């Protein structure tokens, strides 16, 4: 392969690799540090999706072969479909079963609309901390 082309590809690979590692690590820090379940789901899904995009683009730029590009495209499409669905299901399950919310949570539109939950009583869900 042309060495100049490979140099440009490696430059892009370094940039996307730094972005991907940064977002992946920030997702893990958010899972550790956030105050309740909903904040943790938020951090995990968004940051991990961005991190996976960055890392896969780095692989595609560094090892530019047909198999890598096909597999990376499959992982990207699957991650874009699957990760929001999984996070939504998890947040919905937590809301249905009355997971505790952070004390400083500003808006709870489900409680305002009086959506039926599986809670035996209709009082608002307990808060955390």
């Amino acid at each position, binding site marked *: 392969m042309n060495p100049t082309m490979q140099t440009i590809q490696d430059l892009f690979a370094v940039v996307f*690799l730094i972005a991907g590692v940064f977002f992946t690590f920030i997702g893990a820090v958010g899972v550790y540090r956030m105050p309740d379940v909903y904040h*943790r789901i938020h951090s995990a899904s968004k940051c*991990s999706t961005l991190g996976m995009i960055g890392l896969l683009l780095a692989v595609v730029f560094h090892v530019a072969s047909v198999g890598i590009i096909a597999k990376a495209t499959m992982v990207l499409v699957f991650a874009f479909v*699957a990760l929001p*669905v999984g996070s939504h299901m*998890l947040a919905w399950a937590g809301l249905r*079963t009355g997971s505790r919310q952070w004390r400083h949570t500003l808006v709870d539109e489900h409680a305002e609309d009086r959506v039926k939950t*599986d809670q035996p009583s209709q009082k608002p869900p307990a808060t955390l901390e």
Partner: protein
Amino acid sequence: MTSTMLDMLPWCLAMGEVGHAPSQDIPTTIFTGVLMLVIEVGLALILLGIGLCLVRLLRGPELADRIVAGDTIALQVVGLVILLTVRLGSDAYIDVAMTVAVIGFVTAIAFSQFIIATHGKEPA
């Protein structure tokens, strides 16, 4: 037509291993040193992230916290495998990333159904 495409799918996915010698035909450029340094630092950061998620997995007050932590660990493992793919220049490792991503998704769906199904029935 559709069955033909489905028959060709494993062949398309295995195309990378045919006639591609790992890490020899990628020429060394001026960014190779920087790339390897970033990979070393990234491996350390992702291992640290797995440690943080393990702490949340052990400490999480509710079941949903532990499930989120386990799902995030799966995504960190995907990142680790992708870093190894860049490091070794080989095609073979990205299959592991695909598999782990699929299993993480199925795990999240199954556990959320489990939370709803066993709510109020589990011993406190």
